[in-house]
């Protein structure tokens, strides 16, 4: 017994010569044009519906997982101004909802400087070197001066400053400024 391995017309079921989807007869009597148009429409509806589902779920996930951009962190009282000298001390700032290291000093009487302790290169924790008067990053060697300005190494910018407010002799630290 020999098996007919020819492809079949997808409309009438008769054998097709070559690798066509429909046979010559169906093309000739116009059925192919109508049927193929209908199929194309239904296929596109399917792709469209799946696409909509996909976009919907993706949007849902992104909206859910992307952190809401709120206001800068809350102000936090870190003590009387006379506690701060010309030398930086590391403060645990929690006003943004998580612990964050902030270097704070009184540069000159009444002038407070506050810098985030994450290096601007790859966010390693920088260390204040009080004898050299500079911030040093132990990871890739970025160096910042006492005003937080980038002076050496691969960092693209200076340290991120934090909001500073002085009221009733107390120092308040707020969120990080970009």
């Amino acid at each position: 017994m020999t098996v007919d391995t020819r492809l079949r017309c997808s409309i009438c079921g008769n054998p097709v010569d070559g690798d066509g989807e429909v046979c010559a007869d169906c093309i000739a009597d116009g059925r192919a044009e109508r049927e193929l148009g209908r199929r194309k429409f239904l296929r596109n509806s399917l792709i469209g519906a799946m696409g909509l589902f996909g976009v919907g779920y993706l949007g849902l996930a992104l909206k859910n997982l992307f952190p809401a951009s709120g206001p800068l962190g809350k102000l936090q009282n870190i003590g009387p101004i006379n506690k701060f000298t010309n030398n930086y001390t590391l403060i645990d700032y929690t006003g943004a909802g998580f612990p964050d290291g902030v270097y704070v000093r009184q540069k000159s009487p009444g002038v407070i400087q506050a810098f985030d302790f994450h290096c601007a290169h790859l966010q390693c924790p920088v260390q204040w070197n009080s004898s050299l008067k500079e911030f040093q990053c132990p990871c890739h060697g970025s160096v910042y001066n006492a005003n937080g300005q980038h002076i050496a190494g691969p960092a693209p910018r200076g340290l991120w400053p934090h909001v500073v407010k002085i009221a009733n002799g107390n120092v308040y630290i707020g969120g990080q400024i970009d």
Partner: protein
Amino acid sequence: MKPANWVIDRMGIRSFINLQLYHRVPRRVSPLDFLGLGTLFVFINQVVTGIILATWYNASVTGAYQSVQRIMHTVPLGWLIRDLHYWGANFMVVLVFLHMLRGYYIGAYRKPRELVWLSGVGLLLITILFSFTGYLLPWDQQSYWATMVGTWMPFYMPVIGYYIVLLMRGGPYITGVTLTRFYAIHVLVLPALFLLVFGLHFYMVLSKQLTMVEEAEKLPKEKQRGLVTFFPTTVFQMTMFLVILSAALLYFSINFHAPLLAIADPLNKAHYVPIPLWFFFSIYQLLKYIPPALDAFGIIGLPTIGILMLVLLPFIDKIPDRKPSERKGYVYSGGIVVAAIVVLTYLGAVNQGVAAPVQAASSYLSTNAATKTATLTLLGGYGTTNGGFNFNGAANGAMVVTIPQGWTLDVAFTNDGSLNHSAAITASQTSSTALAATDETPNPVLGDAPGAKSSFTFKATTAGNYVIACLVPGHIQLGMWAKLVVAPSGTPSIKL
């Protein structure tokens, strides 16, 4: 009828199975043929140990570290499960790398096996993401700071960079939100993705045959006598390979334990210096040679080019003959890249990151009884013990040097660390000045630069307890001090 046969009959895959089991393959095989099988075996090890770990693990800032400690110390055989998972992860990276290298060498990525190669590249990336997300879960200093650095890298991508950082971290920095996010990706997303891509990889291998099987079938009839059937000969060889591989995995797990450093400290009060995952050492080392202006290119551009090259490889290599000898350009350039990766990984490992080897305490002290002189070799910041704030790898008085009264102690100091350090003999660990100006290295407060050497001589005239300390401000408080005992009599000694 055996249950297995019944299932095979109902599925109608008898002929397929027979074809797979009894196709003819070369008798001589190399362990390199089984690297893919080995990767699959280690992946199954990761699934089994991972599920057990997940039953004990608590993905939260307050509970993660403690639950890992509990797994290590309290849960029955928990330490072994964790070490098998840790070493399995390392084995998997190495096996995937070698597996791809072999495929590259013999040209197994070429038509009609492009999809085998491309799905393999996908599996490599998924394996790296597995390591990256799993690294954060113990929530120790190493996890926390390596993830801080790693998740900041996309920042250097144009336009979308910072949004990707925020999406990965779930906020501006690493918090408990990041931890649960990484956990969900590690145990839900990546395993599903891995199985999906592995399914394609395995299907393509079965349907397109292995390159070596194709070679064997091209042999003239008279030479085909050297061929054997896949089952049972090759299957037995595979079993032996897996026995050896699992023995190696067990050996490493039992003898070298997965580290757990101090709990993550977002303020980094102990001045821990972050270390990348070991298979990022090469790119980490490479960045050191790139001028700051090209830093962003090094962080984003180079890995992108690397992945792009791997993806495009099957479509670039159009040399008619597959043999390595006909593809010398590919073999040599691949060899150069691999050699560079190996050398850079080594340099990255020795220059920073991996704890320095512990030496015998006695190697640091030599004595001359005739002249009553002892020479102490003092390495400041040796290795990563106590965040680098140590002498000879010991901190907080863990090193005790004893010399008899009347002896002279020559101190040969080398700054082996990455920060400035000094050495001085002081009265106690609360003292910030040396006993005398002659009992310290030249710049005790500023310290010697990394790599510098200096020395001084201390005369042990009065018996008592002293301290050897680094007088760079803050370092003694961080634990960079050792004990020095001047005994009324006896011989010099040192213990670490």
